[in-house]
């Protein structure tokens, strides 16, 4: 019987949450079509989205559970694999206590799977040691925006950008990382909007910007204080908003007094005239939006950077209205959801604290088990504890710390020091390669669930085809493991069941049920079944009541260039690849565009180092070194080099600094001191 249909689903790449159709002919994926009626993608996609179906049938897909015997993987049955894992879990809980186990959940998995993973970790294993890669990208956003506004998410919706009068983009190469978000920035620009880009690098957006301010990497608090200094001096602040809706203005104003344009020029390198003009432009706009990403968050001062953005928006009354706000763009398709669902060591789903006794009791009652009140470990801390021998076993779902985390050599040593490592993924990633057991998971095309996009939009992921080989959806694997651990609290007939339980325990998701997620998805907070969802936050009052200004002094990055390591390394992503490349490097056209990594070097530095375009160089930091080819370009300013972190063979994160923000525990991936050596091709040591 011939069957051809199109299954609407959500793109598995960035947090923009584009939708498209998977074309299925007789049970086989034959392609994809964009969805014209989708609220964000509107029938358009980026190159990654257009090819998002290709890796599904990659010959590298994991199709059977694997166990490492004598250094090589051999296939075993699901029953055997799960039983061995259960035995190990029980052994370590008994011998060393539940906190000897660490779990990484995944921003690539659905809300339901993240909920189940954190429920399993807390309710079955008995530890709060669960975290995921949000730690590496927007941990400072979650902490910083909660402190300022009371909610740690993007305040407005993607489409609203189109009607902004001024868009300030900082630390976000939006064109390459969120291509369908840049659509709305470009549309705004083509109407009336002013565009201010503050970024050390020349990014595709700077060609269209009214201002491109190139700060020295790591000096964001300084230039934002400078903006506020200008605005207050010229009386451009929104007095009414400040008085009615905020606290802490006076102290903040006192702090920024010394950040005069001249002072800021000395610290950041931004010419004072440009700073003044840009600050005026932002302040005078009727509706101004701030868009930021990891250039703001991935610093030891990440939380302060985020709070500075919040300060600037509150100072000018640009919160709580359409087409304004503070808009962090989340990198992974479901990194917002993984945070929302409590795959974090300090909160249950809906950001409910594990140390709050009342909340803990609620979850103990719902899950019929005792829960730990002790805060769990974050991503980098887990690796450190593994290195020190305190974490004995890890269970990693859909994450690749061997490429994504700072100081990879240290990560490798940490993971190798584990007594037992379980990795659950769709491919044999760099991390899976060092696992003891690997479980094959189903891809987005093979399962049902929901993803939450960067603008808090909960959308459907729909099953188009049967799982490849013996692979299974992550939610089924977690439930199976839980049952084998002896729990009776993981009996779900479908992901919709799981969402019903989520809604019952999570105030911001209370009104979310599958039947309601239709044309446009549902944006949280959605507190009841008849609530239409919330396109922009903080209307009338902040989630926490009054918004809090923070008085913040500029602090230098943890590691500054010196005579031995004279250059600043900053890392990031490019249009044609995604994160650790697990999916994009298995996609033909993306590999054709960019087959491997490179280091961007300014022509002046290139001349000093004596390196020509395309030549191999050795980049060294205090933590390691990589061989990589040079790309001579003015995209980077003198003294700064840039390396995309997607490529295992020249992994930027061998070099990066694992120094953490003291509050958010996010590593300083954007600033490290490095040097460059020209060398012959062979990767021998100095």
């Amino acid at each position: 019987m011939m069957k051809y249909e199109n299954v609407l689903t959500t793109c598995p790449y960035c947090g923009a949450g584009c939708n498209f159709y998977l074309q299925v002919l007789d049970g086989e994926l034959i392609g994809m079509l964009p969805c014209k009626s989708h609220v964000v993608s509107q029938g358009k996609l980026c190159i990654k989205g257009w090819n998002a179906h290709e890796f599904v049938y990659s010959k590298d897909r994991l199709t059977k559970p694997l166990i490492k015997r004598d250094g090589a993987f051999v296939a075993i049955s699901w029953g055997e694999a799960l039983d061995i894992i259960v035995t190990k879990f029980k052994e370590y809980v008994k011998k060393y206590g539940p906190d000897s186990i660490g779990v990484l959940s995944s921003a690539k998995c659905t809300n339901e799977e993240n909920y189940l993973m954190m429920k399993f970790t807390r309710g079955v294993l008995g530890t709060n040691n669960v975290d995921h890669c949000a730690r590496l990208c927007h941990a400072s956003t979650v902490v910083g925006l909660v402190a300022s506004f009371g909610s740690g998410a993007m305040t407005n919706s993607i489409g609203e950008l189109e009607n902004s009068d001024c868009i300030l983009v900082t630390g976000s190469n939006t064109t390459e990382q969120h291509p369908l978000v840049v659509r709305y920035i470009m549309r705004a620009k083509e109407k009336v909007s002013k565009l201010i880009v503050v970024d050390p690098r020349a990014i595709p957006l700077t060609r269209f910007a009214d201002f491109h301010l190139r700060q020295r990497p790591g000096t964001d608090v300084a230039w934002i204080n400078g903006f506020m200094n200008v605005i207050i001096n010229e009386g451009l602040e929104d007095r009414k908003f400040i008085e009615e809706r905020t606290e802490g203005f006076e102290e903040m104003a006192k702090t920024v007094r010394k950040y005069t344009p001249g002072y800021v020029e000395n610290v950041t390198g931004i010419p004072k005239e440009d700073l003044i003009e840009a600050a005026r432009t932002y302040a005078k706009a009727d509706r101004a939006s701030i868009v930021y990403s990891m250039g703001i968050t991935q610093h030891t001062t990440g939380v302060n950077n985020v709070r500075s953005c919040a300060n600037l928006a509150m100072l000018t009354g640009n919160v709580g209205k359409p087409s304004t706000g503070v808009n962090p763009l989340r990198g992974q398709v479901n990194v917002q959801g993984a945070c929302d669902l409590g795959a974090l060591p300090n909160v249950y789903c809906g950001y409910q604290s594990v140390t709050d006794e009342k909340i803990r009791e609620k979850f103990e009652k719902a899950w019929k088990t005792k829960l730990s009140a002790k805060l769990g470990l974050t991503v980098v801390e887990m690796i450190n504890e593994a290195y020190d021998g305190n974490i004995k076993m890890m269970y990693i779902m859909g994450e690749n710390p061997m490429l994504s985390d700072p100081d990879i050599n240290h990560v490798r040593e940490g993971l190798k020091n584990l007594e037992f490592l379980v990795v659950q993924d769709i491919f044999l990633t760099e991390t899976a390669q060092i696992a003891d057991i690997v479980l094959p998971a189903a891809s987005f095309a093979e399962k049902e669930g929901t993803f939450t996009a960067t603008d808090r939009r909960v959308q459907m992921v729909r099953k188009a085809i049967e799982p490849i080989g013996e692979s299974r959806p992550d939610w089924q694997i977690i439930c199976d493991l839980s049952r084998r651990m002896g729990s009776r609290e993981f009996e779900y007939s479908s992901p919709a069941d799981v969402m019903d339980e989520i809604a019952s325990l999570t105030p911001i998701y209370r009104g979310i049920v599958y039947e309601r997620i239709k044309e446009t998805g549902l944006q949280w907070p959605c507190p009841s079944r008849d609530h239409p969802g919330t396109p922009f936050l903080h209307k009338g009052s902040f989630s926490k009541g009054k918004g809090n200004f923070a008085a913040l002094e500029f602090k230098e990055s943890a590691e500054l260039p010196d005579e031995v390591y004279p250059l600043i390394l900053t890392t990031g992503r490019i249009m044609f690849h995604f994160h650790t490349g697990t999916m994009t490097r298995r996609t033909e056209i993306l590999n054709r565009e960019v087959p491997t990594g490179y280091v961007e070097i300014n022509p002046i530095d290139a001349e000093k180092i004596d390196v020509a375009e395309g030549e191999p160089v050795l980049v060294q930091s205090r933590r390691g070194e990589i061989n990589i080819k040079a790309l001579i370009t003015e995209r980077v300013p003198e003294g700064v080099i840039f390396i995309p972190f997607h490529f295992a063979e020249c992994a930027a994160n061998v070099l990066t600094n694992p120094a953490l923000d003291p509050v958010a525990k996010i590593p300083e991936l954007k600033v490290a001191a490095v040097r460059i050596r020209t060398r012959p091709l062979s990767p021998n040591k100095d």
Partner: protein
Amino acid sequence: MEEVRSLAKSWLESRKVDAILGLREKNGHIAPHLFTETNELESLTILSHIGEINSKYFSSNRSQRYKKNVLFLLEQNYPNAKIGIVARGCDERALIELAKRDQLNLEKIEILGVACTKEEAMNCRCPKPYPTKLDVGKRVEKNSSDMNVEALLKKSLPERFSFWKYELSKCIKCYGCRNVCPLCFCEDCEMEQDLWVKVGQLPSEIPTFHFIRWYHIADRCIECGECEKACPVDIPLLTIFKLLRTDIKELFDYEAGLDVKQEAPLLTTLDETPLKE
């Protein structure tokens, strides 16, 4: 709408066709679907919510290396099946042009032709908003002129040059214009070749990246405008293709998508001998 459904029903019931390829409304969105049972037909629709026709829905793009339309794939799997297809004017033109280029077999399909309304035709800036084989709806006349084309032609050459330079500089190299195009089916796409276009570069190389495609499908373009609708940064691609089609008409007296027997000018050599694709 009801007319389309009842016609589709009678075609299925009389076994005139084994299945009908059309649009289906589900989850509040509209997508292609192969209707094999008459009881499914209540979800058959010809309109999309946002007033845009979801045309060319028989394209598929497993990868550029294997970009075959759905009708071709159906014929491969079911060589004896006859497929009905609900087609607007642009769909019919695409089917004709694909058949001309050996990408599908018109004998295996039966067109259920639907005319577009005046509003739809205006939205799409359509040159011929009805299929030659018309089963449902009334012909509305084509738009005699196009505002965007006229506005462009009023500009001086240097102005037009900077207009296109700006528009193309927005390109984010998604290849959406190519992917969505029903007539872009080459296995080795020249847009990907390092020989012509520097790979991995943003913005894509101006103007080579775009010019290659424009020239390559100059005599194939059926003016459906899907490329423009797929562009994330609103490059006015339909405008350039309207101009290209006018040129092809003037130079070769040829119009793509009208007649399956009409030889495409860029497929013939100078001495008029047909070339094999």
